[in-house]
């Protein structure tokens, strides 16, 4: 059934006209999962029973004329770091092997309330540490477009499953590109909204000041539709934005005439992949042709982003990971006394990448190093934010690559977490500044889809979606 790669818009149209039921749809996706999973490994948990129950409930609502909205009856998946009451959450770690959250993440709750049907939980890099989904206790995820290349990460399972037609859309988390970069690898749309637009409550924290829930979907309209559902003020997340609930589809179809688009000068150097640059230039040309004004902006502090990010992320991650000690939830190892027990549990339950990151975070926060590393990184972060503020005085949004070329090959960066993080060099800055950023399939190379990224001012998601929709429409013109 090629309906599996249809957009939400199309699927909900079929449901509305009763040409297909949610149960049929859900069963079709479950069949696709069954067929594809042996090869892809995009799911850790498939919730077949509850999915069919939810689909039946959706059909019943529709039968009574009480369908909730466009997402009612649409099958979706969640990265396995989202809490859903009673459904296992592993974060792709041995540490959480038998954990079933007793509560549900706010973002997931919004989708369930809208009648969307949860198919299961997606594979990922362990505790979201990684950019290739090679670091999972449940084995790596394959890229459905090219088995020799990684699907990106850490939300690699989410991206691969949407690309392979195993779900209509998925939610992931993006701390340093973890939604946008796998979306780009798998040829789908990835959106990381402004920090504070989607509640983080119930999503396992990696680095609290950088984490944001993101959307992986087939096209821009679907992305806006999902964002309308999950963006909302949440009193349970103190960093939640009061006016987060808005109509994010508002600028779709509004055109790009008069929009000022910035190209970052520092991203045009010889170290950049020619394909990645070509995609950006082509997108710039299309926008110019449609009446937008494209200009170069300079952002000198982008060079420090990776170092700044690595220090802050490791430090926050180390603190967030302290809770996994075997006492109240998760895996518990033997130990003669309390400290041996927790040390053994953590040592046995966590993978080497995670442990190394925890130790590095411990180092940069230790009393003797705090000022030199952590405080310094927080100050550099301010400079990075200022670069954006300056740029946005001149332009409405920035057009950049998502990553430096096509997805890398299996194993080529494994074991070197810095090289791995460097994959996200172009995605990281918008996390540091908390800005909305969107990865859009654009152009191609070696028969694989390319991608470009749009980065906007805080809360300019609607505008970014408008511009992206224009590029998407242009790309589909024969």
């Amino acid at each position, binding site marked *: 059934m090629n309906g599996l790669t249809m957009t939400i818009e199309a699927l909900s149209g079929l449901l509305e006209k009763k040409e297909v039921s949610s149960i049929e749809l859900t069963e079709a996706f479950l069949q696709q999962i069954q067929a594809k999973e042996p090869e892809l490994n995009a799911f850790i948990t498939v919730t077949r029973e509850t999915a069919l129950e939810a689909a039946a409930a959706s059909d019943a609502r529709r039968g009574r004329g009480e369908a909730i909205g466009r997402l009612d009856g649409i099958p979706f998946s969640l990265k396995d770091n989202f*809490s859903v009451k009673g459904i296992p959450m592993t974060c792709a770690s041995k540490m*959480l092997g038998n954990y079933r*959250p007793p*509560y549900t993440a706010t973002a997931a709750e919004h989708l369930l309330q809208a009648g969307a049907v949860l198919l299961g939980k997606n594979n990922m890099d362990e505790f979201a540490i990684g950019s290739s989904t090679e670091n999972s206790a449940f084995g790596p995820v394959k890229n459905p477009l090219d088995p020799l290349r990684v699907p990106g990460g850490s939300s690699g399972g989410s991206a691969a499953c949407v690309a392979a037609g195993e779900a209509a859309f998925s939610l992931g988390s993006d701390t340093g590109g973890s939604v946008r970069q796998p979306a780009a690898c798998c040829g789908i749309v990835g959106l990381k909204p402004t920090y504070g637009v989607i509640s983080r409550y119930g999503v396992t924290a990696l680095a609290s000041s950088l984490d944001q829930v993101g959307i992986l979907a087939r096209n821009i309209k679907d992305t806006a539709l999902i964002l309308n559902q999950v963006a909302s003020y949440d009193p349970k997340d103190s960093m939640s934005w009061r006016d987060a609930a808005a109509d994010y589809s508002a600028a779709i179809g509004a055109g790009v005439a008069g929009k000022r688009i910035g190209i970052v000068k520092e991203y045009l150097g010889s170290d950049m992949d020619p394909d990645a640059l070509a995609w950006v230039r082509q997108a710039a040309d299309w926008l110019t042709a449609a009446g937008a004004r494209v200009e170069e902006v300079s952002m000198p502090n982008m060079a420090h982003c990776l170092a700044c990010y690595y220090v802050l992320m490791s430090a926050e991650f180390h603190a967030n990971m302290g809770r996994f000690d075997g006492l109240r939830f998760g895996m518990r190892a033997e130990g003669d006394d309390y400290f041996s027990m927790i040390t053994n549990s953590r040592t046995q339950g966590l993978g080497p990448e995670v442990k190394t990151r925890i130790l590095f975070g411990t180092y940069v926060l230790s009393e003797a190093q705090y000022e030199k590393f952590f405080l310094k990184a927080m100050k550099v972060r301010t400079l990075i934010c200022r670069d954006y503020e300056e740029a946005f005085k001149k332009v409405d949004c920035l057009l950049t690559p998502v990553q430096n070329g096509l997805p890398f090959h299996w194993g080529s960066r494994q074991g070197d977490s810095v090289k791995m993080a460097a994959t996200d060099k172009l995605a990281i800055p918008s996390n540091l500044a908390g800005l909305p950023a969107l990865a859009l399939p654009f152009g191609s190379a070696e028969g694989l889809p390319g991608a470009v990224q749009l980065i906007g001012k805080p809360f300019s998601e609607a505008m970014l979606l408008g511009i992206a929709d224009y590029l998407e429409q242009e790309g589909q013109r024969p």
Partner: protein
Amino acid sequence: MTAYEIVVGMECHVELKTKTKLFCSCAAEFSDDPNRHICPVCLGMPGALPVVNRQAIEYAVKAALALHCQVQLTSRFDRKNYHYPDLPAAYQITQMFYPIAKGGYVDIETSKGCRRIRLNRIHVEADAGKLLHGSSGIGGAGDSLADDNRGSTPLIEIVSEPDIRSAEEARVYGEKLRTILEYAGVSDVKMEQGSMRCDANVSVRPKGDPVLGTRAEVKNVNSFKAVERAVHYEAERQIDLIEEGGVVVQETRGWDDEKGISISMRLKENAHDYRYFPEPDLPPIILDPEQIRAIGLTLPEMPEARKVRMVSELKLSEYDSEQITASRYTADLFDETVTLGAEPKAVANWIMGELMRCARTKGVDLAAIPVKAQNLAALLAHVAEGKINNKQAKEVFEEMFDSGEAPEVIIRKKGMTQVSDAGALEEIVQTVLAGNPKSVEDYKNGRTQAMGFLVGQVMKASKGQANPGVVNQLLTAALEAMK
């Protein structure tokens, strides 16, 4: 032998009496039943996030104002990272870099006179859970049990400068702090129940030496008397150690009140490094001066000011006013009763006498006493008007103390009336005189103490209902006539 000076700084943790915890909406009340007030946030579950309790911040500001601190316009929370079984997230949310208040002071009065103890800061933080230890306790062979009911309840930590110079001062400082916070109405401040916990940083140095000695932190001190004993013990221990040529090590020591000793709690690996950093999940708290002023207006008149007023306006003695203002309950009861027209000295006597006696013997907490000002005023009025005598009044008061009932109700129930009618008493007086010729003879021979005995006999014969004043008059007249 060298003369030593004791230097003490106190760190007092005080539980704020909010309804809910500091970072989640679980009840903050004490419960014997473990793990009944818990949620993903206070259990540190993955994905759970903290949200600050507004009331806790207001109480902290109120406490700071009562202690003359500079409330900070900007304060923030930080994470303090360490692993312990009573700390589910493995970090405590506290205020390291930008506390809610700085400075301040507590004036204390000891046998050596008045002194001002400066405060360093007050910060807001989440409490840890409770560990119930097996029979063998910490370091023993047994398992422990973790109960998170108390986990994440709001605390303020009040840190003093090392201005305290004796064990007595340490105790009085603690008592004064308790009184002030009780007045401010921000905490139950009960040492015994752990809603106030004091740690003492104790060091000694040769008198006159400007350099501070190495300090030991004494924890687990559960009463103000224990504070005094623990500081005394620790100072002596350090002096002995130095005198024997030893060196004081910086460490944490636990106070064992039963044995009267402190024990080193140093862990094997003494590598404390809390890796503080700003809590990224909580935005800063920015107070505006007007808001701080408004919170200040909700403070009642504090003990110092009340004492001055009681002495100058109500003519109480220094001693009486000190006693009355030692707790907000007695001070409020006094003021309200006087406002209702009772005579100040009489009210003070009743509070310091009967009320304190009942509280002591019955083991009732002052805040839990049901005696209301209007009832105490009414009782005093009955006595003043001669409707009941003092002895009866004490009986009535005890009932009031137990039940909170109005004195009229109790008097009626007990069928108490005071007989002041001379005609009615004359008969009893004559009977008593006739029955006690020896005492009459004694009186005639100038032993006036015999009068007391005779009054007692008349009171007894009247079943305590006679007005002792009238009895006295009647007896005097009758005895004089017999001379």
